[in-house]
């Protein structure tokens, strides 16, 4: 662990604002005029804080204190005045009857027998439990936190600050999404810094490699469509013919987990035909001779074809086209690195972009992610420091990507300080973590579980206390994207509904009660207004990047862009130890990998479970959010598994049949959907939380680590797509 840069580790975050109505011009529609005087209608800027590439700036229309409509903010040229389907459901999200309205206590976990309690009671129960644990163990290490990306508003980092202010605690560390690729890009470039996606239109050739923006980044999909209409050739490489692939000029149905072989095969052809950019490599990189020698001695196009299933002549043509097009861009998705060799694949693709001189070029790049916009102070987090004299000396870090198993290992070992209390915020780990059955056991082994959420989801159902959290429209926030270069402010649009509070208010509330019960037991400040908190988040130099005088200037347009990233790395100043692009990375080698971007063999397909399972993102949800909403249910409300007709025929399965999908660790029963768009030897189940349905794709998944991630994010990622199953008709 350690090495974690706080920004990368946090991945998301946000800040806040003051009050002001905004002109109707900000919106793509003109339903109402801006508020005048004490007008009953107003429009405010909101910001979607989900773990989404697009991190939209939203215009929210409020009439008589009720949200009437949300749409995209025109001031943000990436959002382009439009939202995705999830964003448009927000009014339903806010006013859903399913929201958790009050603090509640469950008589018995999983019973659904919730009784309403007051905030005072809730704070009292929780504070007493914390003090009791501290007294019994002489430390707060038995208290664990599991929080991540359900809401990336920077103010929610108050939860981390809150726990620190009790003492040293146990933390779920890491990120499930993208760590292997982040490590790869850190080894190669010194950091992941993608080109501004708005300049993707400048590419002459665009390879979308293992990403499905049609479902996960609709605004980038729109940019891709524009590029295509301008004559950019769009090639999509993916084992699944996604909606993105369906829009491509060419789709390459690669064998899963062999992406590195395709990149190396293309590079070999480019080298053999002298299409590489020797000048760029000499000027900007180290280790290129070793890399080129590796290609010369170890790689053939025939081998790459054998590995990937892509015919030799296709690899050769792709290589020629990619090398000839100037500039040519690659978008590396998070899907391709969710393998046991995923980090190695990303390095091979980075190298392909670098050897053709496509780095530092607008319309080029090996574009994976960026964290340049996270210039926040994280004041809400650093406000919490362990009280004097805490002997633990540091937090105990558990791997978020294997959290349940590690909790059980600790709680089954009498030598270790047990985990007695768990705080869950901005996360639904039972729905999202692999090995769901282990999650249930881990929860059972913990005495006391508090979850702060908006919905009675699986994790809440296994908790003792639930605290109602405000929606984004009821509080302040600030969010940045890890893809585009905009930072958005979120002003409250309405008063908090029911008795809901923000995570920051909850942190202050608990702190107050702790200090009443035992003065000095909690250092978290309790006397700051939310506006003060937000004003603390934007550092002066960050504000200057936008040409602002004060942070409040962002309220005028609701959004501000960090400029200067049309062509990331164009200054040639890489953040690696050598200051160059590193084809040969000693840091990578020191972390137990190869120094060069070599091919790492993919995971072997088990003989008894020969069908690969993909569980990618669902278009009507973002992980366990949105699919549960009534508006979404009116469009779609049934989980399903996609099966190729050839496999279905072999198994006697017809469209609409119920099938049992079984892995080493569990099974699910779902409806079959027959489609030609998936490989013959794989099935696809989209992960989502359906309201009141017994469905969770993660019962099938093993917590198999990906190859990389621990260097830059603290913990290795997950091989979500190296999962194998059998499929039978029920």
């Amino acid at each position: 662990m350690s090495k974690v840069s706080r920004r990368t580790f946090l991945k998301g975050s946000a800040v806040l604002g003051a009050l002001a109505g905004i002109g109707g011009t900000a919106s793509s529609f003109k339903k109402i005029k801006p508020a005048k005087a004490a007008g009953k209608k107003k429009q405010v800027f909101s910001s979607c804080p989900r773990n989404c590439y697009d991190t939209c700036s939203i215009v929210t229309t409020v009439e008589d204190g009720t949200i009437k409509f949300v749409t995209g903010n025109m001031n943000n040229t990436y959002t382009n005045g439009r939202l995705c389907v999830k964003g448009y459901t927000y009014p339903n999200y806010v006013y859903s009857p399913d929201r958790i309205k009050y603090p509640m206590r469950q008589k018995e976990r999983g019973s659904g027998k919730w009784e309403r309690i007051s905030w005072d009671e809730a704070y009292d129960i929780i504070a007493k439990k914390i003090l009791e644990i501290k007294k019994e163990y002489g430390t707060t290490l038995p208290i664990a936190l599991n929080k991540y990306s359900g809401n990336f508003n920077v103010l929610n980092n108050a939860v981390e600050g809150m726990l620190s202010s009790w003492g040293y605690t146990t933390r779920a560390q890491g990120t499930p999404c993208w760590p292997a690729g982040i490590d790869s890009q850190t080894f190669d470039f010194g950091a992941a810094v993608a080109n501004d996606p708005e300049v993707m239109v400048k590419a002459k050739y665009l390879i979308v490699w293992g990403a499905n923006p049609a479902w996960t980044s609709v605004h980038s999909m729109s940019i891709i469509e524009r590029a295509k209409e301008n004559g950019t050739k769009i090639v999509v490489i993916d084992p699944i013919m996604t909606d993105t692939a369906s829009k491509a000029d060419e789709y390459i149905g690669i064998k899963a987990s062999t992406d590195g072989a395709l990149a190396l095969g293309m590079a070999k052809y480019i080298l053999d035909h002298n299409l590489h950019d020797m000048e760029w490599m000499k000027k900007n990189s180290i280790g290129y001779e070793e890399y080129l020698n590796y290609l010369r001695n170890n790689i053939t196009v025939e081998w790459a074809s054998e590995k990937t299933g892509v015919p030799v002549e296709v690899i050769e043509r792709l290589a020629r086209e990619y090398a000839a097009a100037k500039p040519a861009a690659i978008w590396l998705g998070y899907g391709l690195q969710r393998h046991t060799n995923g980090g190695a694949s990303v390095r091979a693709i980075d190298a392909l972009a670098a050897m053709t001189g496509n780095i530092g070029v607008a319309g080029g790049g090996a574009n994976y992610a960026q964290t340049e916009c996270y210039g926040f102070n994280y004041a809400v987090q650093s406000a919490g420091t362990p009280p004097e004299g805490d002997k633990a000396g540091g937090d105990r870090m558990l791997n978020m990507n294997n959290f349940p198993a590690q909790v059980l290992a600790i709680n089954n070992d009498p030598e270790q300080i047990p985990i007695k209390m768990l705080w869950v915020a901005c996360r639904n780990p039972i729905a999202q973590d692999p090995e769901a059955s282990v999650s249930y056991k881990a929860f059972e082994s913990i005495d006391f579980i508090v979850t702060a959420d908006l919905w009675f989801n699986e994790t809440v159902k296994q908790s003792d206390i639930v605290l109602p959290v405000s929606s984004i429209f009821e509080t302040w926030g600030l969010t940045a994207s890890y893809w585009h270069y905009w930072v958005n402010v979120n002003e409250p649009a309405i008063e908090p509904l029911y008795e809901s509070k923000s995570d920051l208010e909850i942190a202050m509330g608990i702190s107050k009660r702790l200090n009443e019960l035992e003065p000095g037991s909690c250092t978290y400040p309790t006397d700051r207004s939310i506006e003060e908190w937000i004003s603390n988040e934007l550092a002066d130099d960050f504000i200057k990047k936008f040409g602002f005088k004060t942070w409040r200037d962002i309220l005028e347009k609701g959004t501000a862009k960090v400029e200067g990233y049309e062509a990331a790395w164009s200054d040639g100043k890489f953040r690696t130890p050598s200051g160059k692009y590193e084809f040969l990375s000693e840091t990578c080698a020191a972390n137990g990998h190869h120094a060069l971007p070599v091919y790492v063999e993919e995971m072997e397909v088990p003989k008894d479970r020969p069908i690969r399972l993909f569980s990618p993102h669902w278009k009507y949800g973002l992980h366990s959010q949105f699919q549960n909403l009534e508006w979404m249910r009116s469009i779609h409300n049934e989980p399903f598994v996609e099966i190729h007709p050839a496999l279905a025929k072999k198994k006697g399965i017809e469209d609409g049949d119920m099938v049992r999908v079984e892995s080493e660790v569990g099974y699910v029963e779902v409806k079959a959907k027959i489609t030609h768009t998936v490989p013959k030897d794989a099935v696809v189940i989209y992960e989502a939380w359906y309201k009141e349905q017994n469905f969770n794709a993660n019962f099938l998944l093993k917590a198999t680590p990906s190859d990389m991630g621990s260097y830059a994010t603290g913990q290795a990622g997950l091989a979500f797509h190296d999962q194998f199953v059998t499929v039978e008709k029920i």
Partner: protein
Amino acid sequence: MAKKQKRYAFLINLERCIGCNACTVSCKSFYDLHPSINRRFVRETSELLTGTPKRNYISTSCNHCDRPACATACPTGAYIKLDNGIVKHNQDRCIGCRMCATACPYGVPQFDPVKKKMDKCDMCVDRLEAGEQPICVVSCPLEAIAIVDLNEIDESQVVADLPGFADSSITGSSTRFILPKGTTVVRGGIKSWNTL
């Protein structure tokens, strides 16, 4: 010379539509529809539309037909075909008998269980008259929906019929589609087929 009468119609670009339903939900939100009903519908259409298999969708709402079956079936005359081509439903006259829903080959009119009346898309006629585009048009993240004047467009570039969409000649559906282009598909064979 008098200006030629407009014939407003939806033009859906299947090359751009990703089947996301943002159109459906933004419309539902803007008009505060009952949660159980929608004015726009996105359906999957044949994967083989362009030969090689891929994901294709049709997003449609009311097709503002030339010979609206809803209007013919309605016993109270709640439907009128406006001069600009829009078929408008007058809820004040509607008695919720659902004759229109049965008659419409596209199943467009929906029953609002609270108002006990039918509901359907009016092409955001109030917005059009105010010089603004319909909500679904301005909301679609892929800009796949447009309002066109059928008297102005080149009909040879568009189609009125698609698999899974009732024959446009029945009621003279005004909706037009831009067909998707084909995608070159390279899919490697699998070796372990016999063991699956």
